[in-house]
C-alpha cells in the first residue's frame, strides 16, 4: 500500500494518540467546578497554551471547534454578521476563487440567504491571488467590506498565498482578514501574530492529531457572532462541552509537527521533487499544476491529458496506490475542480487531474509504488476515453 493522500488526512502521531488515550480514560467536564472538572480544565487550558505558543497566538485567541469546516463557517459567517450589525453598509464578503468549499459554500450561503454581496478574487495560472487586486478593491469599496477570506495554502495544488501582504492591506483599512491555514499549519511557518490576520483556521487531523478537533484563532478585538449557542464556552463564541482528549491530542500533534517542521519539510519536499521528476520522465506530457516555488512541501498535482482523473484513481487504487482527484463530490460524481478552472484550465484538463500528497510517514517506497503503477494506468485511462467494445 502506498498512501499518497495526506492532504485528506494523515496518520495520528504516536504522541498524539497516547495523549488522547490517556485523557480519554479520565472523567471530567472542563466546565464542572469539582476536582474532576478542574482536572479536565487544566488539561484543556495547558493545551490551549501549547497550541497558542506553537502558532504565535495568545491563549485567549484560541477558540476550540469541531474542525476546519466549523472554524471556516464561524469565521466567515460570524464576522460578517457582527460587522454588518455594527454597520449595515458592510455587505461585501470577499473570498478567493480557490478557497476550500468550507469557505466558498459559507460565502455563497451568505449571498443567497443573508443578502451579502459576494466578491470573488481571481487567481493566476499558478492559483495565486494578486494583492494588487485586493488593494484596488479596498480602495474602491473598503468601507463596504465585512470580511476577507483567503486561504494560506491551497488544498488541491498546494499554492501558498501572500498572506502577510493581504492581511496588512486589510488591517490598514480596518477590515478583518480570515485565512484558512488547514493545509499550511505544520508544513510551512504559520505565525498568527506575525501574519496580521484577524482569524485563522486550523484542524488537528491534517498534522497528526484526531479528526473532529480544530480551532479558530480569533483576535481578541474581533467581534464574531456565534453559530452555536449554549453554555457559553470559548469566549461565548463557541458553546459546547470541550472535547478534552481531542484538545489534548491536538496540542500534542501541533507541538510535535511544529518542532520537527523544518526537517520534515526538507525531507518531504525532496521526496516530492523526486516524485514529480519521475512522473514527468515517465509521462512526458503530464502537466504539473500550481506554483513551482510557493508550494506546500508534500504536494504534487498533475493533469494527465486524455485521461479522466476518476479512471486513473480506480486503476491506481486497484494497485494499492491511494491518491485523490482533489475535487469535490456530489453523490460521488466527480466534478471538475473549481480550483483548476479558476486557474484557467479547461473542463477536460480539470477532470484529468490527480493529487499526490506526502506526509510524515511517507517513504521512497511509496513513490516507487506510484511510479510502478502510473504508466500502465495512464495508458489504460487514455484508451478508456475512446474505446468501443466490438459487437
Amino acid at each position, binding site marked *: 500500500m502506498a498512501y499518497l493522500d495526506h492532504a485528506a488526512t494523515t496518520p495520528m502521531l504516536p504522541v498524539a494518540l497516547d495523549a488522547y488515550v490517556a485523557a480519554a480514560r479520565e472523567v471530567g467536564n472542563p466546565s464542572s467546578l469539582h476536582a474532576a472538572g478542574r482536572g479536565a480544565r487544566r488539561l484543556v487550558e495547558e493545551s490551549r497554551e501549547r497550541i497558542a505558543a506553537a502558532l504565535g497566538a495568545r491563549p485567549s485567541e484560541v477558540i476550540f471547534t469541531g474542525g476546519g469546516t466549523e472554524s471556516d463557517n464561524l469565521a466567515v459567517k460570524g464576522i460578517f454578521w457582527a460587522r454588518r450589525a455594527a454597520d449595515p453598509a458592510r455587505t461585501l464578503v470577499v473570498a478567493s476563487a480557490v478557497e476550500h468549499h468550507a469557505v466558498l459554500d459559507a460565502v455563497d450561503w451568505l449571498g443567497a440567504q443573508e443578502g451579502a454581496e459576494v466578491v470573488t478574487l481571481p487567481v493566476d495560472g499558478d492559483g495565486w491571488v494578486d494583492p494588487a487586486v485586493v488593494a484596488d478593491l479596498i480602495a474602491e469599496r473598503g468601507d463596504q467590506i465585512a470580511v476577507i477570506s483567503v486561504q494560506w495554502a491551497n488544498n488541491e495544488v498546494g499554492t501558498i498565498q501572500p498572506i502577510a501582504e493581504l492581511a496588512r492591506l486589510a488591517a490598514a483599512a480596518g477590515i478583518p482578514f480570515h485565512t484558512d491555514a488547514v493545509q499550511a499549519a505544520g508544513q510551512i511557518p504559520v505565525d498568527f501574530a506575525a501574519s496580521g490576520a484577524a482569524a485563522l483556521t486550523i484542524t488537528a487531523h491534517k498534522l497528526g492529531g484526531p479528526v473532529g478537533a480544530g480551532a479558530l484563532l480569533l483576535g481578541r478585538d474581533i467581534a464574531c457572532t456565534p453559530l452555536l449557542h449554549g453554555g457559553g464556552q470559548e469566549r461565548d463564541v463557541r458553546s459546547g462541552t470541550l472535547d478534552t482528549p481531542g484538545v489534548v491530542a491536538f496540542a500534542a500533534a501541533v507541538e510535535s509537527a511544529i518542532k520537527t517542521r523544518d526537517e520534515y519539510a526538507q525531507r518531504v519536499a525532496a521526496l516530492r521533487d523526486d516524485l514529480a521528476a519521475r512522473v514527468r520522465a515517465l509521462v512526458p506530457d503530464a502537466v504539473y499544476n500550481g506554483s513551482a516555488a510557493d508550494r506546500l512541501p508534500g504536494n504534487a498535482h498533475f493533469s494527465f491529458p486524455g485521461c479522466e482523473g476518476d479512471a486513473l484513481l*480506480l486503476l491506481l*487504487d486497484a494497485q494499492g496506490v491511494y491518491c485523490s482527484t482533489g475535487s469535490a463530490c456530489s*453523490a460521488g460524481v466527480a466534478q471538475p475542480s473549481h480550483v483548476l478552472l479558476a486557474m484557467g484550465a479547461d473542463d477536460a484538463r480539470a477532470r484529468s487531474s490527480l493529487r499526490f500528497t506526502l506526509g510524515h510517514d511517507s517513504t521512497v517506497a511509496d513513490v516507487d509504488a506510484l511510479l510502478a503503477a502510473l504508466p500502465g494506468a495512464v495508458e*489504460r485511462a487514455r484508451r478508456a476515453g475512446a*474505446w468501443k467494445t466490438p*459487437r
Partner: protein
Amino acid sequence: MRVLAAMSGGVDSAVAAARAKDAGHDVTGVHLALARNPQTFRTGARGCCTLEDSRDARRAADVIGIPFYVWDMAEEFHDNVVDDFVNEYAAGRTPNPCLRCNEKIKFEAVLDRAVALGFDAVVTGHHARLGADGLLRRSVDIAKDQSYVLAVLTRAQLDRAVFPLGDSTKEQVRAEAAARDLAVADKPDSHDICFISDGDTRGFLESKLGSAPGDIVDGRTGETLGSHNGAYGFTIGQRKGLDLRVPAADGRPRYVLSITPVSNTVTVGPREDLEVDVVTADRPVWHSSADIADCEVQLRAHGEVVSAAVSLADGVLTARLKSPARGVAAGQAIVAYRPDADGDIVLGSATITAGSRAAANA
C-alpha cells in the same frame, strides 16, 4: 475474471455483486449516476438514482468488501434513453426505456469503459439465466424474469455479461441479502420509469413535447369521438383516460387502435379490432436460424406469450401468430423464445414496426 458490478442501490444488484465475489472474481462495484439533478431521498418505489440509492449501493459494497465508485453516465443516459423515449412517443411508438438502457448504457457505455479499464465483464442483478452454453434464458422466477429487456443484447455483449441471479427467486435473493447483512434486503422493488419520479408519463411527455390538441376518431366510421392534448400521450391497447364525448353505440369500452403522428390523430375501436396475428419488426438481434416454424413470442414486458412462426429476411422479422394478440405497439420489442425445461431460451429480439390481420393482408 476482473468484473465490474453495476450497483443500483437495490437488493438484486447487491446480491449479484456478492455472488460474483464468492465465485472468485475480482469485483469492483460501480453505481451509475443517471439523473442530471439527483434527488436526496427516494420517494416511494420510484426512481433509482437518488443520493440515497448511491449511499445504499456504497454501503452494500463496503459490507461485501469490494471497491466502489460512482460513474457519471447522466449525459449518455439522457441522450440515449430519455431523449429516445420522448422521440419514440412523438413518433407514435411505445418505447421500452429499460431495454434501451441495457442496450446503450449498461452493456455499451459502461461495458466499453469497463473493458477499456481492464475489466472482463459486467455483472448485473437482472433476473435472467446466462450459463456456460452462452444461451440467454428466462429466470427461474417467471414473475421477475427480465430476459425480455435483455434480449436486445448481441452475442458480443452477452459474452461480457454475468447474471448471477437467474437461478434464484426474488424471495431467495432477499433472504440471502438478509443473511449477508445487506441493509437493502427489505428495500422495496423499484418499478415504473426511473426518470419520471412522479409516475406521470403523460405529464412528463407534455412537459417535453408541449400541448398538441388533436382528434380521437372511430376506427370503423371515421367519426370524431373526442379530443386529446397530444397523441404522444397514448399507447396501443390503452382504454383508460380517453375521455370520449360520444359513447359507443353498443356501450362497450373502446381502445386505442393506432396513433398517427402526421395527422395527430388517435384512432379507437372495440377490443376485437385490436387483434393482430401478423407482427413485423426491424433492428433484429438474432441468435437462431432465419426461419422458425414453431416458437413463442412475447410482445411486451410482462406480456403473455403467443405461439408463432417466425421468419427473418432482409433485416425484417415477420411473426405469424397462431392465435391473435392484442395491444401490440410499434416500438416495443418482440422477443422469440424456444420453450425449455431449464428456462425458455431467447432466440432473438426485434423492434415492432406494425401489427396486422392476416385476413386483411390477403
